[in-house]
């Protein structure tokens, strides 16, 4: 390896993260770092805490009664858990795509326009331009350009998920958190989202949770393997797939459990 003068920049850093749901210890001393403008995939058996970890980063765990988080964080240059943390600013910088597409029950246009108009006061033709641009970035424009005023709920599941992606991009985040974004989609829609993820990683830091190891292999350059609330292993995707340090990781990757 060549000695690099400037160390890798990390968009997300978390040290010694513990998360409790009441008495349930869901994350145990997790140390995690995701480099900027790369795709980091998070894998692991069901219930190991992947979603919980993602939700720590934009503080969506706040919405779960009884959830308690400890640890040191740096997310998009902010400390999410600082006393004076600005949650709205944090969530503007850290977008989130959910497992099930969750468009608002309003028009395609309004879905995308709402947040930027509230956050940045964008109006009129500027707003229309930015809606068009974000829809293009989410590879949805050609399919919806003629029915921007139609309800978003009339779109297919795959289109809805890309709409949610566009909605997230319209807020101009730095980091994109995706929690199994393709698990409710057909293979073709999944392919479209995967292509998008690769494209987006040029400009954004992407963290994606997936149960699909091939998908993790295809889209990510970093891989994090969680198990029973612990981060077992983290490293270059290729390296981990080829020669994981830990035996559990090797077992999981070879499909022996999970």
């Amino acid at each position, binding site marked *: 390896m060549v000695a690099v003068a400037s160390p890798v920049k990390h968009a997300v850093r978390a040290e010694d993260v513990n998360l409790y749901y009441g008495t349930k210890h869901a994350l145990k001393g997790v140390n995690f770092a995701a480099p900027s403008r790369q795709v980091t995939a998070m894998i692991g058996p069901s219930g190991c805490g992947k979603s919980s970890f993602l939700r720590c980063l*934009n503080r*969506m765990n706040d*919405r779960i009664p009884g959830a308690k988080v400890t640890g040191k964080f740096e997310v998009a240059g902010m400390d999410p858990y600082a006393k004076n943390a600005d*949650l*709205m*600013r*944090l*969530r*503007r910088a850290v*977008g*989130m795509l*959910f497992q*099930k597409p*969750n*468009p*608002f*029950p*309003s*028009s395609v246009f309004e879905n995308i326009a*709402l*947040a930027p108009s*509230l*956050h940045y006061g964008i109006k009129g033709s500027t707003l229309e331009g930015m809606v068009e641009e974000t829809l293009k970035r989410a590879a949805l424009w050609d399919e919806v350009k003629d029915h921007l005023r*139609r*309800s*978003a*709920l*009339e779109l297919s599941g795959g289109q809805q998920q890309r709409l*949610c992606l566009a*909605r*997230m991009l319209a*807020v101009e985040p730095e980091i994109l958190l995706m929690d199994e974004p393709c698990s409710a989609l057909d293979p073709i829609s999944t392919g479209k989202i995967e292509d998008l993820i690769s494209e987006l990683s040029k400009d954004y830091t992407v963290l994606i949770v997936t149960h699909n190891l091939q998908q993790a292999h295809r889209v990510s350059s970093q891989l994090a393997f969680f198990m029973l609330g612990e981060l077992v292993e983290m490293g270059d995707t290729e390296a981990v797939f080829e020669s994981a340090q830990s035996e559990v990781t090797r077992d999981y990757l070879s499909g022996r459990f999970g």
Partner: protein
Amino acid sequence: MAVLGSSRPNQAELHGRDVRRLRHGKFLIGVATTVHYLVVAMTLALIGTILVKGLPAISWEFLTSYPAEGMTQGGIWPMLRGSILLMVGTLALTLPFGLLGGIWLAEYAGDGRMARTLRASIATLAGTPSIIFGLFGLAIFVLKLKLGTSLLAGWFTLALFSIPIVVLTTEQALRAVPESIEDGAIALGLSRWQTIWKVMLPSALPGVMTGLVLTVTRAAGEAPPILMTAAIYYSTEKLSLGWETLKKPVANLPYHLAEGYRQGGVIPEKIIWGTCLTLMLFVLTINLFAIVIRTRARKKAGW
């Protein structure tokens, strides 16, 4: 299938059970159908009677002219006008308080002891007979606050009657919005209030509207709350819109019906049936409006 069938009930047994089950089902469906037709028949009889008896009385003249000859002739304009006035004011008062109350209960109150007690109290209020509100209005608004029997006291009383119901229907409508939608809004960096106002409420709008309009029109058709707070039997007064109007009692459709019937014989039956039909159409028209607006909202949302 003799080989497989040995431990299974034979065809005849099976058939017998099926027939019994079928008969049982047919019987229940028969009962349900009969009840259904009965309800439809009763509704039709009700509407039919009112239509047949009321329609001959109704004319543009009837709706827009004042009573004459000691109520034995003329129209019911003051009563219709009074009902419209009562409803508009009630709506204006109920809308903000009912909405804010519902939002607060659904989004802020939580599930603690306080909230549960409060919710139970509101549910009790929502189920309280309207005459109780009438008495309360009389004691507080008319006498204590010295508003007298007046439009204003009527508004307050009817709003008091409507608000608890609207609070509950609004809360229900907001709670019916999927949590994933709220999560989506919060994750975009919207504030709590923006989430509620810009995402939750629009999503819940059809339900909120239904609750609001049904309640307020029901209130507008109620006689007991205004009996002692706002109603006057006989009014031929020309109405000037101004502060003074608020302090004056108003004639209105439900009270006119109640009183007209009680004073038996003074008001010709035809006029009473006409008033009856007018009240029904009044409520129907407003509900129709609400349905149109609601369908539009729903279509836009694609619910």
